[in-house]
C-alpha cells in the first residue's frame, strides 16, 4: 500500500504565535475548563499583541490576564467568571468602570456560542436554537435575531426561532494531550467544543503535552478529535494548560484559581504578577521551571488506564 509522507508542522510557541496571531485579529481560545490554552495566551502577552477580539465560551483566568496586558479590545463569551472560585478582577474593572480602558463585550449563552462555532465550521449563514425567547440579551446583542421557520411548528402554525451568526476566527488555538508531527490530535476526557472551534477558523494552532509516533495515533483513530488536515501548527508545550488540567497528565491547580480572585482584584498586584510570571519568563518552559518540581508533584495524577479495543484486521 502506498504511504504518504506527512508534513511536519511542529513549531515553537514563539514562531506559531508570531505567524498566526496578528494585531486586530480574531483569536479563539477553546477548552471548556479542561485543557485551557494558557501557555499560548501567555505568549500572546509576551509578543505584545494589541486590539484582539477574543472568542471563548468560558472567559477565565487566561482571558483576564490577556485583557490586563492590554491585548484585548473585544470579548465574545458566554461566561465571564473565575470558575466557581470568585471574580476576574481586570474584566470587571474594565466593564464596570471603563478603567484603564473599556472592553467591548458581546454576551451570549453557552449554546449560543456552540451554535456560532457550528455555523462557522459548516460555513452556514446562521444556526437556530431554542434559547433567548423573553431574554433581555437580544436588546444588548443585536446579533441575536429571530426568524420564522419555513416549516410549520408542531401545532401547524408558523414558528418563531432565534438564530446566531457564524463565527470564523482568524485563528483558533487549543491545547491537547497528544498529536503526531502532522497534527492528528487526540483528546480524551472533556472534549468540549475544540473540534468545531478549529474547523470554524482560518488557521489552527494545536498545543500538546507530547508528540507521539504515527503508530500511536493510528492504533486508536477514534480518539483523534482534530485531524491533521485542519491543523496549521503543532506546538509541544508540556504543562501548558496550567492552572487548568490535562486529564491523565496533571491535575487542576484549584489553589491558583482561588488566588487569582485576590491577585486580580488589585491592579498593581496583577501587573506585578504578569511582570514576574509572564513577561519575566522567556517561555513556558521557564514558567514551569520557576514553579518548581515540588509544586508539580502536588498536581501529579495516578494511573487509570482505559482498556484497549480491537479494531480488527483483515486475515
Amino acid at each position, binding site marked *: 500500500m502506498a504511504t504518504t509522507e506527512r508534513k511536519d508542522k511542529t513549531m515553537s510557541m514563539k514562531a506559531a504565535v508570531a505567524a498566526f496571531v496578528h494585531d486586530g485579529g480574531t483569536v479563539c481560545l477553546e477548552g471548556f*475548563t479542561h485543557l485551557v490554552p494558557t501557555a499560548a495566551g501567555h505568549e500572546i502577552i509576551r509578543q505584545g499583541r494589541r486590539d484582539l477580539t477574543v472568542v471563548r465560551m468560558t472567559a477565565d483566568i487566561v482571558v483576564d490576564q490577556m485583557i490586563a496586558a492590554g491585548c484585548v479590545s473585544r470579548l465574545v463569551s458566554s461566561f465571564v467568571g473565575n470558575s466557581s472560585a470568585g471574580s476576574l478582577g481586570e474584566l470587571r474593572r474594565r466593564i464596570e468602570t471603563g478603567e484603564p480602558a473599556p472592553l467591548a463585550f458581546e454576551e451570549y449563552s453557552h449554546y449560543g456560542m456552540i451554535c456560532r462555532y457550528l455555523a462557522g465550521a459548516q460555513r452556514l449563514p446562521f444556526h437556530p436554537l431554542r434559547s433567548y425567547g423573553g431574554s433581555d440579551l437580544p436588546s444588548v446583542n443585536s446579533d441575536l435575531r429571530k426568524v420564522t421557520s419555513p416549516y410549520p411548528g408542531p401545532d401547524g402554525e408558523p414558528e418563531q426561532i432565534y438564530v446566531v451568526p457564524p463565527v470564523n476566527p482568524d485563528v483558533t488555538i487549543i491545547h491537547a494531550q497528544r498529536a503526531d508531527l502532522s497534527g492528528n490530535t487526540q483528546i480524551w476526557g472533556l472534549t468540549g467544543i475544540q473540534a468545531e472551534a478549529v474547523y470554524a477558523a482560518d488557521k489552527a494552532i494545536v498545543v500538546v503535552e507530547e508528540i507521539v509516533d504515527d503508530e500511536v495515533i493510528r492504533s486508536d483513530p477514534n480518539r483523534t478529535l482534530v485531524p491533521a488536515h485542519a491543523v496549521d501548527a503543532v506546538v509541544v508545550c508540556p504543562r501548558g494548560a496550567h492552572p487548568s488540567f490535562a486529564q491523565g497528565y496533571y491535575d487542576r491547580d484549584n489553589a491558583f484559581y482561588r488566588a487569582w480572585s485576590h491577585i486580580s482584584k488589585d491592579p498593581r498586584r496583577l501587573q506585578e504578577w504578569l511582570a514576574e510570571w509572564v513577561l519575566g519568563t522567556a517561555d513556558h518552559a521557564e514558567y514551569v521551571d520557576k514553579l518548581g518540581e515540588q509544586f508539580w508533584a502536588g498536581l501529579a495524577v495516578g494511573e487509570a488506564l482505559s482498556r484497549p479495543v480491537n479494531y480488527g484486521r483483515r486475515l
Partner: protein
Amino acid sequence: MTTTTTTTAPDTTTSSELLSVVASRELAARRTVFAGIGLPTLATELAHLTVAPEIEVVYESGVCGAHPSHLPETIADAVLITGAEAVLSMPALFGCVLQGGHIDVGFLGAAQIDRWGNLNTSVIGDWDSPSVRLPGSGGGIEVMANSREVFVVMRRHNPRSFAETLDFCTTPGPDRALAEGIRPLGAGVTRVITELGILARAGVGEELRLVAVHPGVTVEQVRAATGWDLKAAGTVGTVPPPTEAELRLLREDVDPDRVYLR
C-alpha cells in the same frame, strides 16, 4: 433509607446543610438532573442516598453518570471523568441532551429572581455600565428553556435578590418567552429553596407562592424579605427540619471534608 423522626437542634444545622437537605427531598422520583457545583452537588448526592436512588446527574462539562472518587471541586473536576459512564462533547450535551428534552430537573442560581421565576445572572445596574458585572448565562438560558422544571437555591432571601423588577433578565422563564411568541419546553422555575422557606409555582401563568416556612419563621417575615407582594398558599406548611440521618449522611458520606458545607 431509614428515616428517623428525631431532629437535631436547629442551632447545630448550618445554612448550607439546611438548603442541601431541603433541596434533596424535592428530588424524590426525579431521574435526570442537570446540576452545577456547590449546593446542587450536595443536594443530588444526598438525594441519591435517600429519596432518589436512580438519580443521574448530568454536568455542564459533558459528564453523565459520574462515579467520582472524591467530591468534585468544579463541574470539570478530573475525578468526575475517571470512571464516568459517558463524557459528551458540548454540541451533544447542549443540543441533544438539553435541547432534546432529556433533563427532568435543572438546578440554577441567580443574583436576582422575580415572581415569575425569571433570573438575572448578568449585571447589577445597567448592562452598559453596571455597578457589578456578574458571570452571565453560562448554560443557564438553555437549562431554563429545556429542562422539564427548574429548582433554584438562593443563599440570600432579601428584597434585592427577590426583586419586583430584575435589573436585567438573562434567563427568562416560559411566561416571558411565550409573550414573545416562543414556546419553551419546560415549566420554568417550580421550586425556590431559601433559608426562610420554599416558594413554588406549577408552571406557565403562575406566580411563585410561599408554600412552606422553616420552623420559627413566619409568613410575614418571608413577605417582608421579598421585593414583590408575595402571595402565600392557602395552607403554608412547616418544613420538617433535617433529620439526624440526613445530616449524618451529608456530613459523613457526602462532604466529609466540608468542601461545600459551611
